[in-house]
């Protein structure tokens, strides 16, 4: 700024004026921002005046959890995200839950029967259960919920598991019968999905809720929705009329903290009691820290390199096997993932119904070279992509894999892109798809092989589905179809076993590992557990005696 004012009546502005202007700018900005009163009382940011409101009474026991995402919805029917359904689980329950091995267990249903032909399912509803608003759980309420999930006016993003249901019939006050248009064997497990959470029919008329979109879920769970500040926290309080075992804490607060390092700091500062997904490189330090416990929970998320089975020479099974022998997965799990994974020994995680283990491809670069020579491959350059930050150490692991591939003479430098672009690239139909290798994770939302086998089923090739390796084998297709129709669990398992063996030997993927789901919590707590669908289970957490 050069000040060359020759004559200037007011080259000396009175200070009052300048200060006034400064103040005005600030005030105007502030007014522009705050003039419209937020419409949603539940989602209001705390105003400076009410900051000190609702201090928790000293005797109220609060459990504080930090998660990484702000829920897109709390409507059980509309959810697609594990962490969100993890939160909703505190308030809303399902008819069925699966145990850690994928076996269906009773929850709001005390039992069920499947007809011989697999077209009729009878559910017996638990008696003596009330919702947070006092509504009593019965067959009518369950029917209303299932009808809502199937109602085209409700934008349920994942409706396909329930698509086979044609009609829900009320048999008596506590019995319902489902009539199916076609057999769908995984249906019982599908009822453990958060999307099938049972809410009170009256609650859709309550404040803030509509039939199409529930923002304050009213379920039968051990905790009642209290308040939500979008982008910051969700508070739930204990339901005193809960039908099951009552939890220890009066109140649970879920804090939204997108940054992993901040979540870790919150825990170390004693400002929260439990976090998920700390920065993975800090796992060793956290494991050494006596103040916290690290639970590396097994999950159902398989991590693999999907090989494009249609490209030359990758359509040769020997080349795909060579890729599997070329990579030292144990080494990568140890040094890149800090131990937060276990080796994959089947085309699916071990906690899925239908899993049976295969013989792992051990690290053997000589064998890899021999197989490549046998297939007549002299030099190979591959287009390899990986996401960044989608899965644990994804891009870093992909770089390590590229290193191992180069040792057997395969050039496959890794590039990355943002997730939506990545998904678009890998879902490109085969005739235009120029990706040879891509890094991917796959986590069935209920623990059944049916949800994993879509990856190896011909009709699921993009653009129709998500089988991005374009692997296809008529024999495997038949086995998968037979298993989906088979109502005898033992026979079903056997069919999946046969399919698994063929898939394993034909190596449509570089089979890598099953990701573990890190949960870190205060060392003086007990009762913190997990579910293999990448969920923490802390409803019954309490201070150790």
């Amino acid at each position: 700024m050069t000040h060359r004012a020759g004559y200037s009546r007011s080259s000396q502005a009175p200070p009052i004026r300048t200060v006034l202007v400064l103040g005005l700018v600030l005030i105007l900005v502030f007014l522009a921002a705050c003039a419209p009163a937020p419409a949603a009382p539940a989602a209001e940011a705390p105003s400076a005046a009410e900051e000190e409101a609702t201090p928790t009474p000293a005797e109220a026991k609060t459990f504080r959890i930090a998660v990484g995402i702000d829920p897109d919805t709390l409507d059980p029917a509309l959810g697609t995200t594990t962490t969100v359904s993890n939160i909703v689980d505190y308030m809303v329950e399902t008819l069925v839950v699966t145990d850690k091995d994928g076996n269906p267990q009773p929850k709001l249903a005390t039992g069920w029967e499947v007809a011989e032909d697999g077209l009729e399912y009878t559910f017996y509803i638990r008696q003596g259960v009330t919702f947070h608003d006092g509504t009593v759980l019965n067959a009518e309420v369950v029917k209303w919920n299932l009808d809502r999930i199937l109602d085209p006016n409700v934008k349920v993003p994942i409706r396909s598991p329930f698509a086979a249901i044609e009609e829900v019939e009320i048999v008596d006050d506590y019995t319902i019968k489902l009539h199916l248009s076609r057999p769908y064997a995984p249906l019982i497990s599908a009822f453990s999905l958060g999307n099938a959470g049972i809410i009170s029919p009256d609650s859709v008329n309550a404040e803030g809720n509509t039939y199409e979109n529930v923002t304050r879920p009213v379920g039968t769970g051990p905790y009642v929705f209290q308040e939500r500040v979008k982008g910051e926290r969700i508070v739930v309080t204990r339901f005193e009329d809960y039908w099951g075992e009552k939890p220890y804490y009066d109140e649970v607060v879920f804090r939204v903290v997108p940054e992993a390092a901040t979540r870790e700091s919150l825990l170390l500062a004693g400002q929260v009691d439990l976090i998920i997904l700390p920065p993975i490189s800090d796992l060793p330090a956290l494991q050494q820290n006596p103040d916290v416990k690290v639970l590396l929970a097994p999950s159902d998320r398989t991590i693999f390199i999907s090989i494009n089975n249609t490209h030359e020479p990758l359509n040769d099974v020997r080349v795909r096997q060579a890729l599997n022998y070329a990579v030292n997965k144990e080494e990568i799990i140890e040094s890149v993932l800090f131990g937060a994974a276990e080796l994959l020994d089947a085309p699916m995680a071990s906690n899925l119904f239908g899993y049976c283990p295969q013989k792992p491809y051990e690290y053997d670069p000589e064998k890899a070279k021999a197989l490549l020579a046998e297939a007549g491959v002299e030099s190979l350059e591959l287009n390899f992509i990986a996401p960044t930050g989608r899965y644990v150490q994804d891009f870093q692991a992909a770089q390590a894999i590229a290193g191992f591939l180069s040792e057997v003479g395969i050039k496959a430098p890794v590039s990355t892109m943002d997730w939506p672009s990545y998904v678009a690239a890998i879902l490109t139909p085969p005739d235009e798809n120029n990706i040879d290798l891509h890094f991917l994770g796959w986590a069935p939302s209920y623990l059944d092989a049916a949800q994993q086998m879509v990856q190896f089923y011909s009709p699921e090739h993009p653009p129709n589905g998500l089988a991005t390796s374009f692997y296809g084998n008529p024999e495997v297709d038949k086995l998968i179809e037979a298993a989906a129709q088979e109502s005898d669990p033992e026979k079903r398992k056997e069919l999946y076993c046969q399919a698994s063996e063929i898939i394993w030997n034909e190596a449509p993927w570089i089979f890598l590992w099953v990701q573990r789901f890190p949960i870190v919590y205060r060392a003086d707590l007990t009762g913190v557990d997990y579910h293999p669908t990448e969920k923490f289970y802390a409803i019954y957490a309490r201070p150790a005696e």
Partner: protein
Amino acid sequence: MTSFSQYILQRLLAALITLIGISLIIFLLVRLLPGDPARVIAGLLASEEDVEQIRVWMGLDRPLPVQYAMFFSRMVRGDLGISARTKEPVLKEILSRLPATMKLAVISMTIAGVLGVLGGVLAAYRRNSILDFLISVGTLFGISMPVYWLGLMLIVLFAVRLHWLPAAGSERPASYILPSFTLAAFSIALVARMTRSSMLEVLSEDYVRTARAKGLRESVVVLRHALSNALIPVVTVIGLQFGALLGGAVLTETVFGWPGMGQLMVDSIFARDYPMVQGIVLVFSSLLILVNLIVDILYAYIDPRIHYG
């Protein structure tokens, strides 16, 4: 009609045209992003029918001009559509997040104004002293430190090591301290440097010497005669900094789990939530245009050397 009110009208009209242009650019930009928003929203496990259904809900099956016409006609009526991610009205979502971001921005701006001007005046007045040197080094840090890293360092120091302050959230007054300073660091430094150089210039002006010669008290000379003139360019900088603050809010809110628009924007971009991204950028742009308009007009008002026309 005086030239001054003509100038204001002109500026208003320009702001309006800018806003319409921005709406078109935003609309095209979010659609140029690769990736199918319907697939992103449905999640990887959803079937093709599920995705197709979402595509229809979002109106993505229609031609682009039709989509824009719908977006524009609704926008004019103040309807920004429904968020694809949360199924709530975009405007309602934005209004519930706006206060948190605004509070953070205004507090940071106030801190930057007060500390920056104070530091700048001290540095200029005690020119080439140790104090001046320390302030220079401090501002250099403030300008070159990444917001993200600074935030994490402050958390480690004040929350984890010292247990003085909350590491995240916005529940208590104390929660404001770390994010405000993190966000303000760059602006404090910039305002201080600006004030220092502008103050040095003014202190060597004739009228300051005259004032001293008249035997006025030093404090009156510095504060009243020099500072009031030195602050004229600083006002502009503070006004322009507002844009940088909104940008910085995106990172700061992510680091501190602050429930504002920055965090909402990150969530919406990753979810390819077109209506929400459009709405947020539109609101951000309107705010910036408004602030710049006000600054321009006030500047013309306080500094008669500006010729409007």
